[in-house]
C-alpha cells in the first residue's frame, strides 16, 4: 500500500517539526549554558574586582602604621617614628609657691611668691636603645641652670649605662621626682646627700624590677650641692644604691608596695666646694623645711680627705596609705686654715606618712585622681593628707673649731603637716605647715644661720603645680 500524499506530507512536516523542535531545544540549552558561563565569568570578574579593592583597602589601612606616631595627652607630647626607634617627648614642670613665715624674729625678705621650678623637659630615644634627657630650669633663685642632661644606653632593662648630669644614686626622697614629693620641700636628710652630679653610672632593674641597682663614678659634691657643668678637682666620688621590692610580683597585695635598700658614697675631696655652702643667705647648705640655712661651716674650713655617706631607706605603699623613711650619715674629714683637722659625722632621718582621703592609691610616683576635677559632674579630684617628722644632728666635734656655735644650730627637728589636692594628673595644689626647732645657734649675728636659728621656724607653704 502506497502511502497517500497527505500522509507523506504529514510525515515530512511532522519529522521536520520534531527536528526543528530538537534543534530549538539544543539551541536553548546551549544558550542557557553560554549564559551560565557568561554569568560565571562576570561573577568571577566582580569577585576579583571586589577582592582586589579589599586588598587595596587593607594595604591603605596598614599604611598609617608606617607613619610617624604623634601623641598628645596628660603625659606630655610625644612624636615617634613608626618603628619606635626614634622618639622625642616634650614635658614640663611649673611650680609657683607662696611662703609665709610666722614669728620669724625680724628676718626680712623671706615671705613672698616664688617661681620654684620652671622646667621644660625634653627626652627621647635615638636608634632604639639610646635615651636622652635634657632639663633646663628657669625657676628658683640661681638663674638658668641645667638640671639634667644625660644619655642612657639601654642594653637591656637589667644593664644600662648613663653618662652626663643626673641625680647621684643615694637619697630616697631626693631620687623621687620633684613633682611627686609629699611636701613642697624635701626633708632634712636630703641636706646630707649630693644632688645632681656629673658622672657615669651603670644601673638596671633585675628580676622584673624586684631589685634595682645603680653604681657610678662622679665628680663628687658637698652635701646638698648641685653640680655646675665642670669640675676643677682630680678626686672623684663613687656612689651606689641597691633597692629591693621583693614582693612586688607576689600575690600578697598588702606587701607588694614594700621596698627597702641602702645607698652610699665614698670619695676623697679637698676643696671648699666639697662642703655644704659656707656662707649664709639663699645659697644652698643645710637648710630647713623653709629653705633657710641653719648650719654652715666657718669660712676658713675646707674639705680635707675622705667623705663617705650611707643611707638605709625604705618605703611602703598599700592602697591609700604611704610611708617613706630614710636615715643618712655623712662623714667627712675637714680642715681649718690653721691645719686643725677632724672627721665629722652628721646624721639625719625622716619619716613621712600619707593617706589619700578620696581612696586612690598612694605611690612613690604620686597620686592619680580617679575622677579629675570637674565640678559640673560632681568630681573634685583626689585629696591626700601628709605628715612628716625629721631631724638632723651635727657632729659635736664641729663646734667650736669648724662651725660657730653661736650662729649654727647643733641640731634641727622639724614636723610638718599638709594637704595635697590633686585636681587631675597634671595640676596639684599643696599646702603645708612646718615647724622647725633648733638647739644651739641663735647668737647675735644678723645673717643666716644665726638669724634663722634664733627662734623656731614656722612656715606656711602653698604651691600650685603644673606637671605633664
Amino acid at each position, binding site marked *: 500500500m502506497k502511502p497517500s500524499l497527505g500522509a507523506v506530507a504529514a510525515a515530512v512536516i511532522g519529522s521536520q517539526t520534531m527536528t526543528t523542535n530538537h534543534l530549538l531545544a539544543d539551541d536553548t540549552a546551549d544558550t542557557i549554558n553560554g549564559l551560565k558561563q557568561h554569568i560565571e565569568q562576570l561573577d*568571577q570578574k566582580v*569577585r*576579583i574586582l*571586589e*577582592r*582586589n579593592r579589599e*586588598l587595596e583597602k*587593607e*594595604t591603605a589601612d596598614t599604611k598609617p602604621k608606617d607613619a610617624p606616631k604623634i601623641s598628645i595627652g596628660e603625659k606630655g607630647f610625644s612624636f615617634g617614628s*613608626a*618603628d*619606635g*626607634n626614634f622618639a622625642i617627648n616634650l614635658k614640663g614642670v611649673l611650680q609657683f609657691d607662696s611662703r609665709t613665715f610666722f614669728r620669724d624674729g625680724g628676718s626680712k625678705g623671706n615671705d613672698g611668691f616664688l617661681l620654684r621650678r620652671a622646667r621644660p623637659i625634653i627626652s627621647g630615644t635615638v636608634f*632604639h*636603645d639610646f635615651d636622652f634627657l635634657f632639663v633646663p630650669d628657669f625657676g628658683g633663685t640661681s638663674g638658668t641652670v641645667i638640671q639634667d642632661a644625660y644619655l642612657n644606653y*639601654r*642594653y*637591656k*632593662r*637589667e644593664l644600662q649605662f648613663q653618662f652626663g648630669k643626673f641625680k647621684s644614686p643615694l637619697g630616697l626622697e631626693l631620687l623621687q621626682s620633684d613633682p611627686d614629693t609629699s611636701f613642697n620641700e624635701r626633708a632634712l636628710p636630703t641636706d646630707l646627700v649630693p644632688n645632681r652630679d656629673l658622672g657615669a653610672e651603670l644601673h638596671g632593674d633585675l*628580676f*622584673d624590677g*624586684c631589685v634595682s641597682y645603680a653604681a657610678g663614678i662622679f665628680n663628687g659634691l658637698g652635701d646638698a650641692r648641685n653640680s655646675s657643668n665642670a669640675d676643677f678637682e682630680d678626686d672623684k666620688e663613687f656612689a651606689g644604691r641597691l633597692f629591693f621590692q*621583693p*614582693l*612586688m*610580683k*607576689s*600575690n*600578697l597585695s598588702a*606587701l607588694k608596695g614594700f621596698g627597702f635598700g641602702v645607698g652610699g658614697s665614698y670619695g676623697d675631696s679637698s676643696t671648699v666646694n666639697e662642703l655644704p655652702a659656707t656662707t649664709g643667705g639663699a645659697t644652698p647648705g643645710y637648710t630647713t623645711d623653709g629653705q633657710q640655712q641653719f648650719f654652715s661651716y666657718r669660712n676658713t674650713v675646707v674639705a680635707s680627705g675622705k667623705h663617705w655617706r650611707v643611707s638605709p631607706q625604705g618605703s611602703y605603699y598599700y592602697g591609700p596609705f604611704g610611708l617613706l623613711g630614710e636615715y643618712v650619715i655623712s662623714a667627712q674629714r675637714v680642715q681649718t686654715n690653721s691645719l686643725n683637722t677632724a672627721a665629722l659625722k652628721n646624721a639625719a632621718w625622716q619619716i613621712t606618712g600619707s593617706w589619700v582621703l578620696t581612696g586612690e592609691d598612694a605611690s612613690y610616683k604620686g597620686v592619680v585622681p580617679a575622677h579629675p576635677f570637674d565640678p559640673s559632674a560632681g568630681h573634685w579630684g583626689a585629696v591626700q593628707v601628709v605628715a612628716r617628722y625629721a631631724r638632723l644632728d651635727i657632729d659635736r666635734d664641729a663646734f667650736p673649731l669648724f662651725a660657730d656655735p653661736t650662729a649654727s644650730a647643733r641640731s634641727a627637728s622639724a614636723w610638718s603637716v599638709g594637704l595635697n589636692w590633686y585636681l587631675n594628673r597634671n595640676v596639684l595644689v599643696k599646702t603645708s605647715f612646718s615647724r622647725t626647732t633648733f638647739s644651739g645657734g641663735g647668737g647675735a649675728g644678723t645673717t643666716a644661720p644665726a638669724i634663722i636659728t634664733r627662734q623656731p621656724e614656722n612656715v606656711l607653704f602653698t604651691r600650685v603645680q603644673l606637671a605633664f
Partner: protein
Amino acid sequence: MTKRNSNKRPITFTAALALSLVCSFARDINLLNVSYDPTREFYQDFNAAFSKYWKEKTGDAITIRQSHGGSGKQARAVIDGLAADVVTLALAYDIDAIAEKAKLLPPDWQRRLPSNSSPCTSTILFLVRKGNPKGIKDWDDLIKPGVAVITPNPKTSGGARWNYLAAYGYELKRAGGDEARAKEFVRKLFKNVPVLDSGARSATTTFIQRGIGDVLIAWENEAIMAIKELGQGQFDLVAPSISILAEPPVTVVDKVARKRGTEEAAKAYLEYLYSETGQDIVARHYYRPRLESVMQKYAGQFTQLKLFTIDEVFGGWQKAQKAHFNEGGVFDQISQANR
C-alpha cells in the same frame, strides 16, 4: 592550747613570708614569636603546650604572643624594630635578611638547631574546586587559558616564593634546564593569577571564602586544613607530579632575647618543637614532622610525591632570591611582560 597556737603564728607567718619571697622570684616571661601566615593555629596549640611544660619545669609563667603575616613582610618588620624573641618564618632567606641587615643574630644561625633549624617540612600542592571542573592534574594545567590561579605575591610572601620556585623547577626539569622556557612558563602562570595576595592565608581566603579562581597553589598543611576544616566536601586536593621540599626554619633573635632577658626561654621554646610533643602538634597541623616515629603515626595524611630541594635546583636561597625575587629579577621581568 591558745598559747601554743599563738607561738606558732610568728613561725607560720615567717615561713609564709619566706616562701612568698622565694615565689616572688618566679618570673613572668613574655615571648614574641614573629611567624608567617598559615601557622596561626599551629602555634596557638604549641604555645599552650610549651607554657604548661615551662611552668612545670621552671615555675615561671610564660606568655607567648604571636604575630603573623607574609614571611618577607614579617622579616622586614623585625629588621625595622619589631622586638621578636624568636622568628619562625617560611624560608631561610628571610631570616638571613634579618641577620644581614639588622645584625640581630649570627649569620650561621641555621646550624644551631637540628635539620637546618627546620623542625618540620612541607610541600606545595593544589587545591581545586569539588570535582576538579577544570581537570587540573599537574603544573602545566595551570598555564592553560581560562584557568584562574590563586597564589600570593612572592615579593611579600614566603609561601608564594615556594609556589613560584616549585613551578619554575617543574618546567626547568621538564625542559632539560632551559631557563628561557622555565621563565616563559612562570610568566604564563602568573598571567592567570587575577589576585595577588600579600600572604598565604590571605590567598586561602581569596580562594575559599571569596570563591575566586579554579586552583589555589598552597602549602600542604594549608590545603589539607582547608579541606578538613574550612570547606568540607567543597574542595579536592591535587598532588602534582613533582613539587618542592619546603623547610620553614626557626631561630632565636639573639640581640632582642638577650636584651629582654628571654634567651633561655626562647631557646627552650624552639627546642621543644623537636620534642615528641612538639612534633606531634606539628603533625596534627598537617606539617610533616622530622621525628620518624611521629611521621609513621601520621603517614596516612600526607601524599607521597616526588620532591626536589631548593639547593639542588636553584643552588640555595641566596641565589634563588637574587635571580628571581630581587629588584629586576625574573619575577619583576615577567610581571612587566604581563602588564
